[in-house]
């Protein structure tokens, strides 16, 4: 880093250099193109407009969670509680909604709008607890959110006691399972949320601080950035996004029960990381997450079309995630070596 002025580094045009710099952006996009090409070739029914809507709809719940996780991972933290908080929020929502007679839950029916507010209050509150633990007590987010994962699961368990709830307020039902001129509301909601998140990250002071805290936490602290406030905020944003995903997810799936959202933790982390947002923070963003969501969405959907053994499907997803992690770390290392050498 301390190379003297007298010997400036050559900054000539080099395709290799650009490729190395952009590896984290190019790799996910190339993966997406290859997957789409493969499935279109292997299954003619895959590349249809109707199936595109399917893919988007299937990716929506993951997408809403991934929005919050993008903020978290950009600050070089992690949130393992997203699935459990989605579940807990979903169950709080149904707990305060009038259920059909055959549902045997000692719930408290309230007006729809109040149930929704209580749902938001639940995920916001859980987010604040995470934020407090991470920023004030100093528990690493990895461990803190592991505990919150258990707490979320516990809230779900206590409220439904092994039962299944079905009814949600009509607004949530519309957004989660109805369509507007053939386009499911949940896709519109997810798209809007992604757009808002992109705006916040790219064009607001808060967004800049998120990137700076992720880029170099100490430098951000010494520059007068309230690092704890930023970290606390992203943990809370993540919890609220998870809560919204949970509420809409119940409407989308048609029921709420324990462990319903467990798989979404891995899917959402995978979407963010496969998209190319750095696990070390400070690099990436919503654009990357969108590509990552498409990669996972196309993969999950396409594997159904080519009639692959469903057990093998789990393995393939694991391998894809591993490859993405390798590329993620490798992209970071390439940058680092260029800094020192060349």
């Amino acid at each position, binding site marked *: 880093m301390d190379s*003297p002025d007298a010997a400036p580094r050559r900054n000539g045009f080099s395709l290799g250099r650009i490729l190395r710099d952009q590896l984290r952006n190019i790799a996910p996009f190339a993966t997406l193109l290859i997957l789409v090409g493969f499935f279109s070739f292997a299954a003619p029914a895959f590349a249809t407009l109707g199936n595109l809507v399917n893919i988007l709809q299937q990716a929506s719940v993951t997408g809403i969670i991934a929005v919050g996780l993008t903020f978290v991972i950009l600050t070089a933290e992690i949130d393992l509680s997203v699935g459990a908080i989605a579940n807990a929020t979903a169950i709080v929502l149904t707990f305060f909604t009038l259920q059909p007679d055959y549902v045997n839950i000692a719930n408290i029916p309230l007006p729809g709008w109040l149930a929704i507010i209580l749902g938001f209050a639940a995920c916001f509150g859980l987010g604040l607890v995470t934020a407090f633990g991470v920023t004030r007590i100093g528990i690493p987010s990895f461990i803190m959110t592991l505990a919150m994962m258990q707490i979320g699961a516990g809230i779900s368990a206590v409220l439904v006691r092994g039962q299944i709830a079905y009814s949600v307020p009509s607004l949530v039902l519309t957004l989660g399972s109805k369509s507007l001129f053939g386009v499911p509301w949940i896709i519109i909601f997810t798209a809007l949320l992604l757009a808002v998140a992109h705006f916040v990250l790219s064009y607001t002071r808060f967004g800049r601080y998120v990137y700076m805290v992720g880029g170099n936490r100490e430098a951000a602290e010494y520059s007068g950035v309230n690092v704890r406030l930023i970290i606390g905020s992203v943990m809370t944003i993540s919890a609220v996004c998870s809560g919204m995903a949970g509420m809409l997810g119940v409407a989308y799936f048609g029921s709420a029960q324990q462990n319903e959202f467990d798989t979404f933790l891995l899917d959402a982390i995978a979407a963010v990381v496969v998209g190319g947002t750095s696990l070390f923070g400070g690099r990436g963003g919503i654009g990357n997450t969108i590509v990552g969501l498409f990669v996972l969405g196309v993969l999950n959907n396409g594997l159904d079309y080519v009639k692959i053994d469903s057990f093998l499907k789990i393995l393939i997803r694991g391998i894809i995630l591993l490859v993405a992690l390798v590329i993620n770390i490798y992209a970071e290392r390439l940058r680092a070596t260029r800094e020192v050498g060349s």
Partner: protein
Amino acid sequence: MLFAEEPVFKNVSIAILERISRWLLKPSAERAQASTQTQRLGVRPPGVEARLGALSGGNQQKVALAKWLTRAPKVLVLAEPTRGMDVGAKEDVVRIVKSLAAEGMAVIVLSTEPETVLSLADRVLVMRKGELASEFKDCAISKDRLLAAA
């Protein structure tokens, strides 16, 4: 301490972001501020879009100085401002700090390099084991006397 992966202007503007904007970023104002300060300090290469990590150590140091000058401080405290710099960059920093002092800014420099101290200071306090060992003021300060006192 800076952000190696970010462009120069973001490294400079981070110190005054809350003065430039309340909610929405104003990148043109950030660039203008950064441009003014980096030109004043002679950061090479000129231009505020370059990734900070691509600059030499001396120029990164100047960016760090530019960052705090955007706040127009009354007092500037510099810890080891010339450490690890080549001769040319050191001269630049000395010239810059002297001109800031000439403009009326109070500058406190902490340094373990006698050359830097000698070329910058009007008044030198020598610290030894956490205590004030000696003071030089308004008199000829030579490297020998400085080292003897330390």
